[in-house]
C-alpha cells in the first residue's frame, strides 16, 4: 500500500463527507471506492477517515445503506485491527478503529465491539498535558455528536488540560492539531462540561486559519455541528 495514495484518497473521501454534510445527503462510500484506481488504497482511506465517514448519519440522522456498511466492513477485512497494541501509534489506531467499529455496529445493529484497553495507555499522564493533548488530537474522530466511551470520559474529565493543549497549538500556529483539539473542546461544550475558554470564539479563530485540507475541515465541520446543537 502506498501511504501517499492512501492519504490522497482520505482527503478525497473527507471532501465527499463534507459535501454530504453541506447538502444533507449521504457520503456515498461505494461510489468513492468505485472511483479509486487502487481499491486497496481506497479501503485504507476509508479506514483512515474512520468514524468520520458516519458524520452525515450522526448529524443528519440518515440511515446507513447496506452498500456503505459493506465498504466499512471491507476496510476492516483487508487490514485486521491490532489486538495487542504495543506502540503509541498502534494504540491510537486501536482506539480509532474502535470508534469506527462501534458506530458501524450502532448503525447496523451488529454486535458491539470490545474496547481496547485503559485509555490512560494511549493518552499518557495528564500532568504532561502538552503530550497528552497531542494524543487526544490524534483521536479526533472519536469526538462526534453523541460520542461516549472510555476515551471520551477520560478527555471530558480533564477540560483544563485540553484547553491548555489547544491554546498551545493555536499559539504555535499548528492549526491542524488546533482543529482536532477544537473539535474535542466543542464536544465537551455540547455535553455541558464547563470550560475556561469560549469554544465558539475558539472555533471561529481556528476556522479562519485552518486552511483547506479536507480532513481538517471535517474536524471543524464536526465542531461546528457540536456547538450548533447546544
Amino acid at each position: 500500500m502506498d501511504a501517499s495514495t492512501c492519504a490522497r484518497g482520505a482527503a478525497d473521501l473527507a471532501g465527499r463527507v463534507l459535501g454530504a454534510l453541506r447538502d444533507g445527503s449521504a457520503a456515498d462510500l461505494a461510489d468513492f471506492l468505485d472511483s479509486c484506481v487502487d481499491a486497496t488504497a481506497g479501503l485504507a482511506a476509508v479506514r483512515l477517515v474512520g468514524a468520520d465517514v458516519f458524520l452525515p448519519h450522526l448529524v443528519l440522522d440518515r440511515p446507513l445503506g447496506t452498500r456503505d456498511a459493506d465498504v466499512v466492513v471491507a476496510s476492516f477485512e483487508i487490514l485486521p485491527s491490532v489486538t495487542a497494541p504495543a506502540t503509541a501509534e498502534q494504540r491510537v489506531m486501536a482506539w480509532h478503529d474502535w470508534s469506527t467499529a462501534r458506530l458501524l455496529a450502532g448503525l447496523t445493529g451488529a454486535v458491539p465491539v470490545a474496547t481496547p484497553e485503559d485509555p490512560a495507555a494511549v493518552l499518557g499522564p495528564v500532568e504532561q498535558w502538552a503530550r497528552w493533548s497531542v494524543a487526544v488530537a490524534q483521536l479526533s474522530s472519536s469526538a462526534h455528536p453523541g460520542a461516549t466511551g472510555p476515551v471520551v470520559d477520560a478527555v471530558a474529565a480533564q477540560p483544563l488540560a485540553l484547553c491548555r493543549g489547544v491554546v498551545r497549538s493555536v499559539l504555535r500556529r499548528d492549526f491542524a492539531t488546533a482543529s482536532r483539539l477544537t473539535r474535542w473542546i466543542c464536544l465537551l461544550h455540547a455535553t455541558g462540561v464547563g470550560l475556561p475558554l469560549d469554544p465558539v470564539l475558539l472555533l471561529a479563530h481556528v476556522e479562519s486559519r485552518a486552511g483547506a485540507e479536507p480532513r481538517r475541515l471535517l474536524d471543524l465541520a464536526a465542531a461546528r455541528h457540536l456547538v450548533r446543537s447546544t
Partner: protein
Amino acid sequence: MTVHTSARPVLAPADLAALSTLVAEPESAVADPPLPEPNAAGVLLLGLLLSPSTPKEPRK
C-alpha cells in the same frame, strides 16, 4: 460494487504500520509562535522599565 465484494487481499503488517502512522498524525514539529520582529526598535525598550524617550530641547 461486485468488484469490491470479491475476495480482497489482506494487507501485510507493514501496511497496517503505515496506516497507523497516517492515523496517528503527529503535531507540527516546527512551532511558529508570536515572536519579536528581529529589527523592531522596541525590543530593547521593553523590560522592567518602559520609559518614553527623553524630550529633546531645541537647539538655540
